């Protein structure tokens, strides 16, 4: 009896310990749960309709550019300056060819570009996995999507090599092998880009980007040809430039947008002139989601907008006096008015040069859309191609340039590359260099030229493509026309052609001597 009681006393805790033990075995299974995340292995690759999602992701990554990217790529040209003093002085120093490898913008451009390349490669590999599970009928789609990622990757490699010369070629998401190969020379990179476009071409849609219905504005066969032309231009392989550009021209699919001013505004979005375009929108609504580029650095610091409330910009991108005077000398109106936002202070300063004491009456600090650019400390002019009239802003959206697309490659550049290639001795197939140049001139309201020389084409490129993606700077570097870069008190020497590798990357990567 007594023992029994003791036993019972002991039993209660025993049962309890047993139950606890049982529970703990099941509790330990919980340790393997990863609540709240989505692994790549969790995607349903048999759902072929989702195969487009990684492609859209790749576009999203290439569109979402740091504000500093286009500024740093373009600022060293003789078409544009960094603006005066204020913050970001090393940016202004870069414009003066005094480089600081520790400056954050250099590293930021580098990391933005390379992380995009990796994301793009990732997208291609994910599409391949979808393809592995897809019915045969979807193979063509998969191949097209993968080809599109190659175009995006090619353009990015091209930009990087223009800025830094020798860089790594990154072909997949696992970078081990690519890093082991070391950096490729600029010529190797451009060759790689050109070959990559050849790989992509057979799978890409034969249409203009704005004709695409699956991904309106996405890249096509002609975008790939354009990137190929750009790569070969860097290689001074003019016959290949002529071949690629003439294919685009002879497709008869592209045409110059008739209103040069509006090309860079809302009406020019996804026009028949555009071969590659970063797309942004506030979707016409005052509220809700926005996918915008930060255009404020391009804008004037002080303005009186036609639509009250519209925000001004930072004044970081100032068309140069050299460019403005060059345009005035040519009696340019449309392209000058489109490219430059004037301030009274800037106009007054041009006039201090006796040669420009009287300016055409249309030059004023009021834009054709009625925005008044007031004097501001940092700069005397602002970029007109990156300006969206306040009247074109969506009601309720005030950020500078909200919703405006960013044109990357347009038909005018194709025509002028073609013309340049011919004047450099390439064989024509289709129109003449004169015809190509005159198409561009006529749209700008200028008369025809005959017997265009290489110098004529370069002047035309300067006038047509100023402030766009450093085209002018990289042309002068390629042609070793360094005298042009020693302007307004600057002294350019050949050793300044490339930006130094960012310090953070030198510390991280086997970059070697640049």
């Amino acid at each position, binding site marked *: 009896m007594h023992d029994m009681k003791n036993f019972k*006393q002991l039993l209660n*805790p025993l049962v*309890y310990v047993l139950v606890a033990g049982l529970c703990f075995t099941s509790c*330990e299974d*919980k*340790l*393997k*749960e*990863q*609540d*709240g*995340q*989505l*692994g*790549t292995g*969790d*995607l349903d690759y048999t759902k072929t309709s989702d195969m487009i*999602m*990684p*492609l*859209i*992701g*790749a*576009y*999203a*990554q290439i*569109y979402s550019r740091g504000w500093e990217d286009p500024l740093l790529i373009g600022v060293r040209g003789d078409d544009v300056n960094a603006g005066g003093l204020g*913050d970001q*002085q090393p940016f202004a120093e870069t414009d003066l060819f005094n480089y600081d490898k*520790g*400056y*954050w913008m250099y590293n930021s451009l580098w*990391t933005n570009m*390379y*992380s995009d*390349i*990796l994301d793009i490669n990732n997208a291609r590999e*994910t599409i391949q996995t979808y393809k592995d599970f897809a019915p045969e009928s979807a193979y063509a789609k998969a191949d097209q999507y993968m080809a599109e990622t190659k175009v995006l990757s090619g353009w990015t490699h091209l930009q990087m090599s223009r800025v830094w010369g020798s860089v790594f070629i990154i072909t997949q998401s696992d*970078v081990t092998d690519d890093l082991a190969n070391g950096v490729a020379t600029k010529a190797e990179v451009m060759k790689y880009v050109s070959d990559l476009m050849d790989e992509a071409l057979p799978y890409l849609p034969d249409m203009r980007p704005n004709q695409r219905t699956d991904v*309106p504005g*996405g890249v096509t066969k002609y975008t790939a040809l354009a990137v190929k032309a750009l790569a070969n231009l860097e290689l001074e392989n003019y016959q290949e430039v002529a071949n690629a550009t003439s294919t685009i021209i002879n497709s008869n699919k592209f045409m110059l947008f008739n209103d040069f001013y509006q090309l860079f505004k809302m009406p020019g979005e996804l026009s028949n002139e555009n071969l590659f375009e970063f*797309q942004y*929108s506030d*979707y016409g609504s*005052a*509220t*809700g*989601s926005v*996918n915008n580029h930060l255009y404020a650095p391009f804008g004037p610091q002080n303005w009186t907008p036609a639509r009250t*409330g519209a*925000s*001004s910009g930072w004044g970081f991108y100032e068309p140069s006096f050299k460019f403005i005077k060059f345009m005035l000398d040519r009696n340019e109106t449309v392209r000058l008015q489109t490219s430059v936002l004037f301030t009274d202070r800037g106009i007054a300063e041009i006039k201090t040069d006796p040669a420009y004491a009287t300016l055409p009456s249309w030059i004023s600090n009021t834009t054709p859309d009625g925005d008044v650019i007031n004097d501001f*400390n*940092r700069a005397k002019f602002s970029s007109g191609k990156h300006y969206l009239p306040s009247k074109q802003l969506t009601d*309720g959206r*005030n950020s500078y340039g909200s919703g405006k697309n960013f044109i990357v490659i347009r038909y005018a550049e194709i025509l002028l590359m073609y013309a340049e290639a011919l004047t450099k001795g390439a064989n024509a197939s289709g129109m003449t260099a004169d015809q190509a140049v005159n198409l561009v001139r006529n749209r700008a309201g200028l008369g025809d030229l005959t017997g265009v020389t290489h110098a004529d084409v370069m002047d035309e490129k300067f006038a047509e493509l100023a402030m766009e993606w450093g085209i002018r700077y990289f042309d002068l570097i390629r042609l070793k026309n360094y005298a042009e870069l020693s302007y307004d008190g600057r002294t350019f020497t050949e050793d300044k052609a490339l930006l130094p590798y960012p*310090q*953070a990357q030198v510390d*991280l*990567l086997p970059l070697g001597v640049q």
Partner: protein
Amino acid sequence: MKARLILFLFFLFSYSVSQAQELTVTGTVTSAEDGFPVPGVNVLIKGTSRGTSTDFDGNYSLKVNRGEIVEFSSLGFKTVTVTIANQTTLNISLEADIEALGEIVVVGYGSQRKADLTGAITTVQAEDIERTPTSNVMQSLQGKVAGVQVVGVGSPGDSPKVRLRGVGTFDGSNNPLYVVNGMFYDNIDFLNTSDIESVSVLKDASSSAIFGQKAAGGVIIIQTKSGKFEKKPEFVYNGYSGYQFAQNVVKMANTEQFATMAYESGSSTDIANIQNAIQRYGRSRINPNLPDVNTDWYKEILRPATISSHSIGVNGGGENATYSLGANYFSQDGIMDMKNEYERFNIRSNVDIKLSERFKMGTNMVFSNATKYNAENGAWFQAYFAVPTLPVYDPLNTEATPVAYSDATKIGYRGSQNPFPTMRFNENQLKIRKLLTNIYAEYYIVPEKLSIKTSYYHDYSSIEERNVRMPYFISQNSQRETSSIRKAQATYSNQIWDNVITYKDVFGDHNITVLGGTSYRDEAVHNLSATGEDITGIDFESSWYLDFADPESFNGNVRDNGGRVYGVSYFGRAEYSFMDRYLINATIRAEGDSKFTANNWLYTPAFGLGWVISEENFLKDNNVINFLKLRASYGKLGNGSLGRSSGTRTVSIVQTDIGDQPVSGIVSTSNFSNLEWEVTEEKDFGISARMFNSRLTLEADYFIRTTDNAVIPVIQPISNEIVRKNAGEIRNQGLEVSLDYNQTLNDNWRFNIGANISTLKNEVISLAENQEYIDGGSAEFRQRTRVGDPIRAFFGYEVLGVYQNAAEIQNDPIAMANNLVPGDLRYRDVNGDGVLDADDRVILGSYLPNFMYGGNLGISYKNFDFSVNVSGQSGNKILNRKRGEVIFTSDTNMDADLAINRWHGEGTSNSYPSSAGLRKSWNQKLSTYFIEDGSYFRIQNIQLSYTVKPGSLLGKRMPETRLTFTAERPFTFFKYNGFDPEVQDGVDRQTYPVPAVYTMGINIKI
């Protein structure tokens, strides 16, 4: 045999007779040492649960039967037992128990005699905590515990930063683990200070290893107040109210000084802007070169603010149950002149029930309901920059709506500067509701020896956030066209289920305690947030709901995420002591956590050894040394507060514009983290001693704690994704000494004095392979983590002085190469290559102090008590980013020290550049010019109190009443050019200054 029976019957009879003979015994209990009455002495009839305790004057009254044994016991005194014969008056004199063997310290999953400890534990009692008028108990520990750094906060309701023995993690949380009545917390902002009975700081690894995960930041055990068996109900009111004032307000350059700087800058726009201000706001009649405006922006945005607290509670107990119940209301306004305040209402209860001699159950609950309005800290920063030539209001700004605030762009400046739109058109409300509950059952299988206890804890917290953004227009650069409201709801549900079996026994001189247990942990968090724009009826708080927003605006503005982490642990502890001389403690915990993908399991063994030398024959009964113990301990600690590793590449959803339509895509990562526990290893060597009749106590510890697999960010080549890896090693080491002395001089005078110091050396021992450093901070204000230096040290140039004249420029090729002029800073060419570039940057110091100290003095005279606490630190640096941000905007105001002491001609300054120099990028590099000494000495707390003893006053019966006057942080002495040297992570940009607080308080016990 017969005789025995008779004897037995006689006793039985006499027992029943005596039972009938109940006496009321009264008396006074005093201390043998000084004759003072001893309040709170437990007076218990042995073998029963009947008893009472002495009142404030040491008096007691108890009904006793003849022959019963009455036991008088109190902490720190030897227990006295008296058999009651016939006496009705029984005065007892208690002898101090100088061994204080009875003092019990709360440790992990149990308690231990203080004398048996082998680790470093410091306990702070309620009376020391209650001196500080604060919403957060940790604030009151500032300067009180050696080795604990408390960095105060000024914003109401926020928690101070607490660092225990340095920083041992890079990526994870360094916060200590708070164990509140057994439940784990990383934030105790919900606890009312006066509800706390004691705070035990477990400093070394051997003490805290049993807590496994999160213990690496140290463990702080908090017990809330509980009742006592056989105690009459005691009602307590405790309250104070007072004012807070900003102190050491930074003196800014006034209009005259600012204009001088502008004229000297040589910048035509800066000079023009002064003229613009004259044109717009009129000319000063005193100095016609100045505008008729002289705004002191800090004065404009500051206000005196109130603070008050009221607590009521009751505690006591009967034969089988104890209870402690209470409520508290706390309210504090912020010193920033906007909707900035904190209000909290707490209720608590603590009930323990003896169901039988063997079976005990209890429950414990704290519910806290707080509303907090956060300040717009950006205003601290804007007020620094706003030029004094700008008034707050500008009647000429007619386009402004709804208030005609001024805007600096109107007089030519780049930014709008005025902080008031930020303060007036934003409101940030948080409703913070936290509930801590637990229930336990404890069963003694063998009475007083073997027990089993199961406890379940639930911490449920809900934080509702409402950020209202009202529309306004001041200028194009300072405007908000569309109103918006962001609502965020975060709920946390954390559960723990502990099971512990404890065995205690004594075999002769051998004392043994063995404990084993399991713990199951489930931590769930859920966040839901949405932002709506264009609110209809934004002017009325009653319509601050998303239902009144434009439904279109939710697109892309709704977030929903969460996570759930599970943990399973097994733990044990063994304590052994022989003759109270030789002590061994050992603990182990094995803990699995789902957060880690590389290796779920953590093992944290620890052990400690103690040698109580004073128990040895050669030192026993020594007149000077009453107690002396040497301690040594070793242990491992885990840090699980690291954020989850994914263990696989993950996918996220992105949206982009395709053909003017928002389209979703997916992006996958190229790399992933695959982490295991961070483990910190610690060795601690200590001495505990009491001398001179235990008047002088000494605690000293030397520690080395090393985290050898610290999680650090490693930048992946090309992708530049930052992947966290267990690849770093960080070490903290230091010495902690605290000394306390107390003495009673005579019947009227008593005093105590104490001091503590601690040193700290923080060092990065290694980083990942081929990783030379980890860069933190921003590009302009670099903080670099590098082997051999402290974590996140400031990194930049060393200033040698200022170029004074043209000859100095001529003679320095660096000055010539950079086109410098007199008034520019001269930097050290560290590598001596004749070029000043990024390679000349050096470590400029750490935000961690290497020396901290605190002290206290208490004097009692009759009913008056006076106390002073001081604290201080040195060796830490502060980045004065207010000055440093001249790199972004050079046309703004500066502090008066800089304006007055600028270089303005040969010999005028060798530390500050000229006005023109301030605007040059050469002088804006991060350098020792912006890195300032963060040392300070502070009078932490002064308190004067007067106690009215219970009795009669003016013919009325008065309860025991204590009146106090408190000055918290009244004086701080420092060199730093800012409000306050208390800057949490050493970067002062918009630090909310910690105000001085003055309160009157009253404490009533009935």
